[in-house]
């Protein structure tokens, strides 16, 4: 087997080889991958980094809780850093790659059991390798009428990884962490913690583990999201009872300056519960990626000029801002709510289009979002995910800040602004040709400036790619970082779990 030059920080090739030999005894020889070719799938990046910047040293494929414990014991012994992944599909945030080169990937994809689905209480218990596709098929085959909420790349990704990254979807269960209940976590020293009611001594497991989140004492689950304090091997989910009916609505705003009015109109409808799911405003460029590539519109440098963009958008029935949401319930419940929202949006200057189709709001899996990656060619994507108050002025503020900086770097502005309730999430997709090293450097400079400018304006980043985790962590201040370090020292004294995740680094004892 060819030897790779990349090694964990401070670990010699000899020590790594010894550790890998022991890991082969834990998971089987075929389940330890080393060498260029076997590791290729873990090195695929969309972010603006060179492929070798985040190369893993090896990958270990675990199939059970006992194997995860065995892997952790070996890695503690040799102080080998481990980067756990569930499906490894953190697209635009680093995919499967570790936050620093030389870590060993702990691939949990083979732990893909759907352990329990309770159709009465609408809960599930799943392992990290389970995908939304798998769970969707499982429910459909058994005619269990529960809906899933998934991100736009749902078929390929899974609820454990997405929830732990605090990902979102588009139904009333869009906040995935808010709809998770109970975790099984393997701590760095191999102990197994079941959070919430899961620690009750009931056998084989607490009957309320997936029912009540908090148990007794501090609520711990948040510590294991966007962090490196443990390896989550089971996660409880709340699933949405399929509504009797639904109706997806599109509201088009014909002027860029309508954005503020749109947000001001949406917020009270969300806060009152009239609209139960997040309301997403997609800009014209983002919507256009469904129909065209950048080069179809414009072959010059810099952002596609507004005139060309809006003309192409009109051809495809796309407005400068396109708001979508759904109403769920019985037809009797939907009818009056539809009247209320139609009136509100028409009064705000929007054009209301009924019976719009968006599968992510109605339990239909698809991967149409991937045509986004075709916009600029070359497969580059990095997200800028920021949060503000759900106020029109802040929606405009985030739009102008992002669009202005992107334009300075000659990049197109593709974005959504989503009103969840009190919070508004601005998500900009920076797509670029990552085959060109100069373009990658240029995009990195741009993202660095965006992070700094957004933080200075009070718009925090809520999810970061592996190449900007430190930069984003710094924007939240030293006290926050010190608390994270204290927790890290307490829970992982050898610093073997995912060093660098969310800017939390190993502090080896």
């Amino acid at each position, binding site marked *: 087997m060819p030897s790779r030059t990349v090694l964990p920080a401070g670990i010699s090739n000899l020590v790594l080889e010894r550790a890998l030999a022991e890991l082969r005894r834990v998971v089987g020889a075929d389940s330890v*991958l080393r060498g260029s070719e076997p590791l*290729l*799938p*873990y*090195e695929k990046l969309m972010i603006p980094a060179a492929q070798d910047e985040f190369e893993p040293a090896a*990958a270990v*494929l675990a*199939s059970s809780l006992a194997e995860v414990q065995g892997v952790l014991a070996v890695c503690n012994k040799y102080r080998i850093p481990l980067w756990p992944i569930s*499906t490894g599909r953190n*697209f635009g*945030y680093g*995919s*499967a790659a570790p936050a620093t080169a030389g870590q060993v990937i702990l*691939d949990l*994809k*083979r*732990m*893909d*059991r759907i*352990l*329990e*689905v*309770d159709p*009465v209480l609408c809960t599930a218990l799943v392992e990290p*390798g389970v995908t939304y596709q798998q769970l969707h*098929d499982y429910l459909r085959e058994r*005619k*269990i*009428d529960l809906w899933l909420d998934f*991100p*736009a*790349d749902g078929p*390929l990704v899974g609820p454990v990884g997405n929830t732990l*990254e605090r990902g*979102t979807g588009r139904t009333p269960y869009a906040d995935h962490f808010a709809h998770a209940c109970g975790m099984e976590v393997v701590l760095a020293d191999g102990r197994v913690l079941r959070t919430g009611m899961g620690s009750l001594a009931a056998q084989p497991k607490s009957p309320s583990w997936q029912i009540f989140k908090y148990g007794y004492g501090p609520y711990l689950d948040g510590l294991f999201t966007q962090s490196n304090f443990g390896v989550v091997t089971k996660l409880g989910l709340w699933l949405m009872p399929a509504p*009797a*009916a*639904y109706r997806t609505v599109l509201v088009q705003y014909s002027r860029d300056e309508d954005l503020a009015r749109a947000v001001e109109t949406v917020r009270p409808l969300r806060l009152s519960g009239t609209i139960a799911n997040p309301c*997403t405003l*997609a800009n014209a460029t983002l919507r256009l990626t*469904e129909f*065209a*590539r950048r080069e179809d519109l414009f072959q010059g440098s810099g952002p596609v000029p507004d005139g060309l963009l809006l003309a192409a958008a009109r051809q495809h029935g796309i407005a400068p801002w*396109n708001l979508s949401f759904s109403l769920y319930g019985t*037809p009797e419940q939907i*009818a009056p709510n539809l009247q209320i929202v139609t009136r509100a949006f028409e009064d705000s200057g929007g054009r209301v289009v*009924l019976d*719009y189709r*968006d599968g*992510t709001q109605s339990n239909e*899996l698809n*991967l*149409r979002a991937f*045509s986004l*990656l075709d916009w600029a060619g070359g*497969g580059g*994507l990095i997200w800028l995910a920021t949060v503000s108050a759900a106020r029109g002025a802040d929606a405009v503020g985030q739009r102008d800040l992002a669009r202005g900086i992107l334009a300075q770097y000659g990049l197109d502005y593709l974005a*959504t602004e*989503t009103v969840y309730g009190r919070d508004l999430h601005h*998500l900009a997709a920076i797509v670029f040709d990552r085959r060109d090293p100069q373009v990658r450097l240029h995009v990195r400079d741009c993202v660095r400036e965006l992070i700094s400018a957004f933080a200075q304006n009070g718009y925090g980043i809520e999810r970061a790619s592996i190449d900007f985790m430190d930069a984003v962590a710094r924007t939240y201040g030293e006290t926050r970082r010190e608390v994270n370090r204290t927790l890290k020292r307490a829970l992982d004294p050898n610093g073997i779990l995912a060093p660098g995740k969310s800017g939390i680094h190993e502090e080896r004892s």
Partner: protein
Amino acid sequence: VRGGAVRWIGGGLAALAIALLATAAARAQSAGEWRSSRELWRETCGYCHNDRVARELRGTGISARLLISAVRSGPGGMPSFAPSEVSDAELEQLAEWIAAQPSPSASSSDRGARTPRHGSRERPQ
């Protein structure tokens, strides 16, 4: 209120019946089940390789060797697939299956023939 009828979802009553009949939660699906090439195509490749997101592969004469390499490395905007998700044996069989498939329709694989799509595409995360 304008527009057509509210979209009904089948199985509302069926769900209630299942809930009433369910005496125990539905349990367990075993890991590592072998999947057929047709199933892998349906639940993974076919979502994109349909001339809408990426080009159709069936009936193009693409070699199995090239397919295997693309699946593992993920060229361009395509994701990569590790052996933990698609085993070497599954991948080999899948690549041969794709290479042997006839074209599903007479539709062009020319990206210029891209069909307009409907539905939003927000938030791949």
